[in-house]
């Protein structure tokens, strides 16, 4: 019998990590995601599964502890909010280059700078376009409910190991802070050393007599070798674009206007679609679940049906650029910044202007 609980999005990330056999969490507190480490500290998983939970001295230390854990094939994670995630960018580009799996949860807050703790989606570019230096991408998952906060922890770890890449859950503060009913996952044991060697043969698990040395690095001083590394990474991203795109299409096919929105904004827009249809305007909501890879093909399919598009975001206009890349420049944008969340009525006004 599946266990149902009433939990905050942040709390369930912690619970899901324990249940999915996570080996280690390294983090530094920051609102609005502090409940993740708080819940872990209350749950004491080190007594239950042996999972390590460590409050590092900084975000830099956190991501480099994750780097170390990932190098040895462990399922490791960190979480932070916007300013803290900025500090982690060096570690993330190193891990992308070294092809190391990990889960990073960014519960975004209003920026730029230290900003405010209100909900935001202002880190879209940073998450989706790489974030650190060099040509790399993260797989970016955007949960819109507490249930998805639970489910994407497991999905995130699976994708991270499948592609040997850091995976980011990009969450707005609303989904992190709200409580909903959630069906918790079954307990999965942590991988044994043998399982790690089987599932992650690249992992550094100790040199054995006669076995070739393994080497994990992001430093390739030979120019042509580094180009080959880049080509390999790009080939990997191409496969992700072909195989890992996830989205939800809510009544877009019979709609005249398609709202593209992710996270909690997509839910607000579901309400907008309902209000609009009550007034005879056919509106649908296309919610990307993966922000990288982006649902370009689905948007192009809808564009071929002659629909109008609007991107609604808690930002000054970031995802809208990817929508425009997919369907052309004629895409409207509406967004609020600074931690302000638009009301359904205010978005509906924008929709009416498009009719």
């Amino acid at each position, binding site marked *: 019998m599946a266990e149902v609980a009433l939990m905050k999005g942040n709390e369930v990330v912690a619970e899901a990590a324990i249940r999915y056999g996570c080996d280690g969490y390294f983090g530094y507190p920051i609102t609005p995601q502090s409940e993740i480490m708080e819940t872990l500290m209350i749950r004491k998983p080190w007594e239950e599964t042996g999972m390590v939970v460590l409050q590092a001295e900084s975000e830099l230390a956190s991501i480099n502890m994750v780097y170390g854990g990932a190098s040895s094939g462990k399922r490791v994670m960190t979480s932070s909010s916007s300013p803290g995630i900025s500090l982690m960018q060096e570690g993330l580009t190193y891990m992308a280059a070294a092809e190391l799996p990990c889960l990073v949860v960014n519960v975004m807050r209003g920026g730029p700078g230290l900003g405010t703790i209100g909900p935001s989606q202002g880190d879209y570019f940073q998450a989706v376009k790489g974030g650190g230096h060099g040509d790399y991408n993260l797989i970016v998952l955007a949960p819109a409910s507490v249930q998805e906060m639970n489910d994407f922890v497991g999905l995130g770890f699976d994708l991270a190991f499948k592609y040997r890449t850091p995976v980011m859950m990009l969450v707005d503060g609303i989904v992190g802070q709200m*409580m909903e009913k959630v069906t918790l996952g079954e307990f999965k044991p942590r991988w044994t050393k043998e399982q790690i060697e089987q599932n992650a043969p690249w992992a550094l698990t100790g040199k054995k007599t006669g076995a070739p040395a393994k080497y994990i690095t992001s430093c390739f001083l030979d120019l042509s070798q580094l180009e080959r590394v880049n080509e390999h990474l790009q080939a990997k991203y191409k496969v992700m674009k072909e195989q890992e795109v996830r989205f939800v299409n809510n009544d877009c096919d019979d709609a005249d206007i398609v709202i593209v929105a992710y996270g909690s904004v997509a*839910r607000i827009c579901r309400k907008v679609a309902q209000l609009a249809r009550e007034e005879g305007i056919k509106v649908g909501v296309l919610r990307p679940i993966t922000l990288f890879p982006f649902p370009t093909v689905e948007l192009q399919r809808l564009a071929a049906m002659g629909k109008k598009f609007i991107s609604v975001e808690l930002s000054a206009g970031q995802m809208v650029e990817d929508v425009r890349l997919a369907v052309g420049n004629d895409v409207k944008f509406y967004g609020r910044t600074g931690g302000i969340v638009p009301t359904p009525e205010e978005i509906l006004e924008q929709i009416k202007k498009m009719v």
Partner: protein
Amino acid sequence: MTEEILIAGFGGQGVLSMGKILAYAGIMKDKEVSWMPSYGPEMRGGTANVTVILSDEKISSPILNKFDTVIVLNQQSMDKFEGAVKPGGCLLYDPNGITIFPTRRDINICRIEATRLAAESGNPKVFNMIVLGAYVAVKGVVETSSVQLALEKSLPERYHKLIPLNMQAFTSGMELVEKEFLVE
């Protein structure tokens, strides 16, 4: 059935936990629920509010600006949220500390002297359960038995001995509602 509720007051009045118990009580009745607190800088300034939605259907937006019921527990919240009640909806308020009373005539207005009763009972901590009792008496979206179950589910076992006291406060709250103004 969808009931969209805002509870607004001071930090320390038990606003968030009252919302949580209500949400749990909804789960006991197999409803979809969402609980969204104000977690912004305003909570550092002493006020607290929470939006709770109980519904038979999947909940779309967890953030709203119009509510079926608004429960107001201080003057700041009265100023800010009297206007947020849907026409024909319900405003419940505790008159303690209220100097500017509600004036709308398109909503139902109920007064709950919960602060006074909590003080008289000698246990001011049960204030939020009194208010919850009054709310359930007015709207009846959940049953007393569901609230009892919700307390058992949401409180750590070491506090279970306090459940009878809380349920007593809940019941006394049910009898405390004064209907000040009713829309036909």
